[in-house]
């Protein structure tokens, strides 16, 4: 249906290129060195839980409405911001031993289990591959109703720049 180029705000999601231009994605050497937060919250909206929750002050918002900026040096990859963000727009990324890892918030059924196989979806929802869940955690941050924070492992590290959602297929075995 897309016979003309849609801008991000008409499409309702960003492409990787757009995010790179906005300086939202961390540089490759950092992704290769540690688990790092990236925030795909690029619009001015009045919101600040991410900045509030980060214990090492790695996230700054110049005002309540300014888009958050992550200090990649400071971030320890603790996942607190993933669990608290109401926009579900914080992800962690890491490339390690030739594999890609993405940590994402998950609020659907079935509940994720260590070792579950998943379909990997990109920002548009398209399935781009398969992966495996490693150590999902159920976190409550400032709210009695917690959400899952799930890390998925994928064989192709390049995919970690694209994967933003999962569909759980079930047990590996």
């Amino acid at each position, binding site marked *: 249906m897309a016979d003309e180029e849609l801008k991000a*705000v008409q499409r*309702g999601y960003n492409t990787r290129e757009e995010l790179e231009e906005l300086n939202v994605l961390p540089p490759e050497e950092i992704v290769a060195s540690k688990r790092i937060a990236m925030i795909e*919250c690029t619009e001015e909206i009045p*919101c600040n839980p991410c900045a509030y929750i980060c214990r090492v002050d790695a996230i700054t918002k110049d005002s309540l*409405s300014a888009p958050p900026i992550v200090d990649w040096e400071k971030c320890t990859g603790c996942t607190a911001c993933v669990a608290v963000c109401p926009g579900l727009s914080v992800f962690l990324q890491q490339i390690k031993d030739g594999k890609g890892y993405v940590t994402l918030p998950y*609020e*659907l059924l079935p509940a994720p289990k260590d070792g579950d196989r998943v379909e990997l979806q990109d920002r548009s*929802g398209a399935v781009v591959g398969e992966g495996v869940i490693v150590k999902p955690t159920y976190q409550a941050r400032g*709210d009695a109703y917690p959400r899952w924070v799930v890390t998925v492992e994928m064989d192709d590290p390049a995919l970690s720049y694209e994967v933003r959602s999962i569909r759980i297929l079930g047990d590996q075995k």
Partner: protein
Amino acid sequence: MVDWRIYEHPILEFDRGEEVTIYLDGEPMKAFESETVAAALYANGLREFSKSIKYRRPRGFFCAIGRCSTCMMEVDGVPNVRTCIVMVKAGMRIKRQKYLAEYLSPILNLMKLPPQVYMRLMTRPGIIYKPAMMVMRQLTGLGAFPKKVLDPPPQNQGAQGEISTEFLIVGGGPAGMQAAIEAGQRGISVVIVDDKDRLGGQLVKQTHTFFSDIKYAAGKRGFKLGEEMISQLDQLPNVRVITETSAVGYYPKEDIMLLKGPNNTTLKVNAKKYLVATGAYEKTLVFENNDLPGVYGAGGVQTLLNVFGIKPGNRGILLGTGNVALMVAYHLIQAGIEVAGVYAPSFRRVRGYFVHAAKIQRHGVPVVTRHTIVKALGRKEVKGAIMTKLNTDYSHVPGSQFKVDCDFICIGVGLNPAYDLVQLFNPKMVRSGVLGGFVPIRDKTYRFAENAYIAGDCGSIEEATTAVLEGGLAGLHVTEALDIRSEEISEKITEYEHALEEDRSSPFSAGLKTAMNEITVDDIMEVLT
């Protein structure tokens, strides 16, 4: 047996209470104590609740909050009960209102009577009025008069009589509750009324976490915020909460607000100050078959889904790309219901927050701008929808129509401030597109008439967080107007104003801020006289 209830949900647990049996036209059906009649019937698969008055079109529920009146049925012998706001009771007998006109409807249609005829024909002479109305009501399915005048049963008596109070708040949403908290904590005697069975307003159906400053509501789920406010109110003995009671009139001469409670009980309240915090009504759309059961308001779908835990259908589409439509799409995904797409005519951008649009698209639900609905398909209930692409002048692109399979269509195209009650105070109303519709001119203390104040969505369509802040401010200003003043109150007012300013600092609120300034005056009494 069909059961549309959701028993497994990633976030919510539905405490449905005890199972009871109700009867629809004599058929037993499974229901739960905590369900409204409409919800219970819907869970049992009933989609057609009544037939429309003139064309005998099937009508189901639409708004689920007691506004649209399409869910009326006969309950325990009382006709025209809005089943979406009446709770089930064991053994309740519900009847689809019988309509002899079923058979006559082709003839009535041929006659092309204007609808008033049904209502106003034969009002004279008086002698034949009653029998004539009996016949007309039977014909039109408006329900027979009850056989005898039903006295309110002794149990479940609503508040009755006449009372006086310092501060009467109408509407128990976030705005009304915060006003009650602020005024109540400072010793004002407060009465807060709401027409639902519980306080919370729109918050009760919001299961997602909120934006805004973490000091106020951010990161909390809407209904949790509501529960917290309710427990704060519980601590205040000078705040009286009256639920299942709606304010139906204000009589300026007598300075009396008329409230209607369960079983036709009435209560008259005289107050020194009034706060109208009645929220908003949902906007809807005109398209072919837009009244078919299966076409619902977004709030209605949210209520079914998040309050009662009932699936509206198996596969749906959403119309509108504002935050409400995007949120409802996400709630549907969470409940495991397929969403075929979110469609809206917007050209410039997805109207809601970008992060909301992004979170549903990554689950594979397309957000499609520059499209609109042409018609809903189906005879008795929705079977699909015909969509079309739009040109920039909003005309349909020829040949671009396509069919989407779905069994429900959810309209989330925005809200209109509920100004009925506001208007009874003879305010100066203005129309503002940005603020959602007609709103009263007010001053900086939220006063729009001599003794009446306004807060929340009924004064300007915004968000829960701003509703809380406005409500708090109105509560504090009323406290001051009742001659309770202190340093602490002025400080609190400054704090709230600052927070409101921050909340409205994003580019999304630029237009809103201008509009708010335009309708806020220094001296409200000058404007009114």
